[in-house]
């Protein structure tokens, strides 16, 4: 059962306006049968300090990642997780979170790997909800467990592995990390922990478009015309390009994957979740340092 779409005019210019809801829409649709609201944050305790009424928590580390292998949970694990959160295969899921939905977009991308069809992002995330003075509760949502089918994860359509990136070299790559990381001055985001890449720099020919450029001051996505300016005019992408986006562990690039796929409608955008923590430690893969994208060595 799909909950009605948000008719907000600002969304209609986007390629897939059905992927966004506004804070106003969510406020008036809370409690609608078939709607499940999910909070996904960088901070593992933020949900406990207050969340949108009825929202369930899904954590990127402790829920979505496999605890042993560097991978996401498998079909059985996803089925168990979503069932325990009261999410059915045909539920409308709206995800929101801190840090301008950085982690919410990551969760949305993982939902997409499992082909959950109706999953939307709350435009502006927690920050906008709070800025508008909308209420939170500290009452943890207790969901009745439901059946979510075991679905095999699709690791081909929206996800890229290192060999895919090597095969893709020469086609558009977007590096969404900070300029400092792109240039090679550091291997982790400013003010973020070191995550163990042995080399710094970027993948040759990758254009640097820090992920947050896609959002405006209030945390909502920029209008389509501005996004086109940033990604088409600025980074040289074309509307029908096949693109791979990467960052450090695949979270920030999920946000850009969302913008390119659902807002600009590029047909084939993949997120390289191995990202710099993998590429920067691989033996003999090409790396470029400095502010220029660089060229492929033959």
């Amino acid at each position, binding site marked *: 059962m799909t909950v009605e779409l948000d008719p907000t005019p600002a969304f209609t210019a986007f390629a897939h306006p059905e992927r966004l809801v506004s804070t106003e829409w969510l406020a008036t649709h809370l409690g609608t049968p078939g709607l499940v609201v999910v909070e996904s944050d960088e*901070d*593992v305790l*933020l949900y406990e*300090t207050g969340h949108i009424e009825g929202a369930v928590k899904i954590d990127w*580390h402790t829920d979505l990642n496999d605890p042993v292998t560097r991978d996401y949970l498998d079909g059985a694990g996803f089925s168990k997780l979503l069932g325990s959160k009261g999410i059915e295969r045909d539920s409308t899921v709206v995800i929101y979170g801190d840090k301008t939905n950085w982690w919410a977009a990551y969760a949305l991308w993982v939902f997409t790997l499992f082909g959950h069809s109706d999953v939307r992002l709350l435009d502006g995330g927690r920050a906008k909800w709070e800025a508008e003075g909308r209420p939170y509760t500290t009452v943890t949502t207790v969901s009745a467990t439901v059946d979510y089918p075991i679905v095999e994860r699709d690791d081909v359509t929206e996800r890229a592995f290192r060999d895919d990136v090597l095969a893709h070299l020469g086609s558009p790559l977007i590096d969404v990390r900070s300029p400092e990381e792109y240039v090679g001055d550091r291997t982790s985001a400013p*003010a973020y*922990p070191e995550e163990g890449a042995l080399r710094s720099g970027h993948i040759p020919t990758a254009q640097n478009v820090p992920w947050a450029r896609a959002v405006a001051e209030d945390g909502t996505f920029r209008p389509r015309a501005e996004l086109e300016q940033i990604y088409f005019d600025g980074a040289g992408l074309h509307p029908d390009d096949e693109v791979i986006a990467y960052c450090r562990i695949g979270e920030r690039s999920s946000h850009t994957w969302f913008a390119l796929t659902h807002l600009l409608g590029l047909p084939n955008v993949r997120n390289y979740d191995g990202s710099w923590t993998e590429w920067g430690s691989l033996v003999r893969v090409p790396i470029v340092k400095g502010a220029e994208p660089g060229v492929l060595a033959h």
Partner: protein
Amino acid sequence: MTDPRLPEALEQIREDFLALEQRDRLQLLLEFSNELPALPERYADHPDLLERVVECQSPVFLFVEVDDARIVHVFVTAPKESPTTRGFGSILVQGLYGLDVDAVLAVPQDYPLEIGLTEAVSPLRIRGMMALLGRIQRQVREKSAV
């Protein structure tokens, strides 16, 4: 099992966490987070005096004082949007309270790995707490040097 290297308060905190189920450990961390004391006025008005812990995912600042009796005073602040980081800070502020220089420097650097939070918050996040402890100890070393 007690760890003889640990000051009493840190040992008690460790035992309290380990006695809980994973889910309840988060709740206890939230309680610590809520208990993080506000900065004294002399720092609240001078954020420039505080050292930023860049290894933490969220902005967290700390300041250490060593008084004439070589007792260490630790001050930590982090925004309310970063309750996990506040919780880490609060554990250290409470656990190191009233200790002298030698006792603070004797705390094992891997204490954050021993309190049963690694699984509850993830290994990546617990590194932020190790960085916080490391920086506190470094400031203590600097400020207690003659």
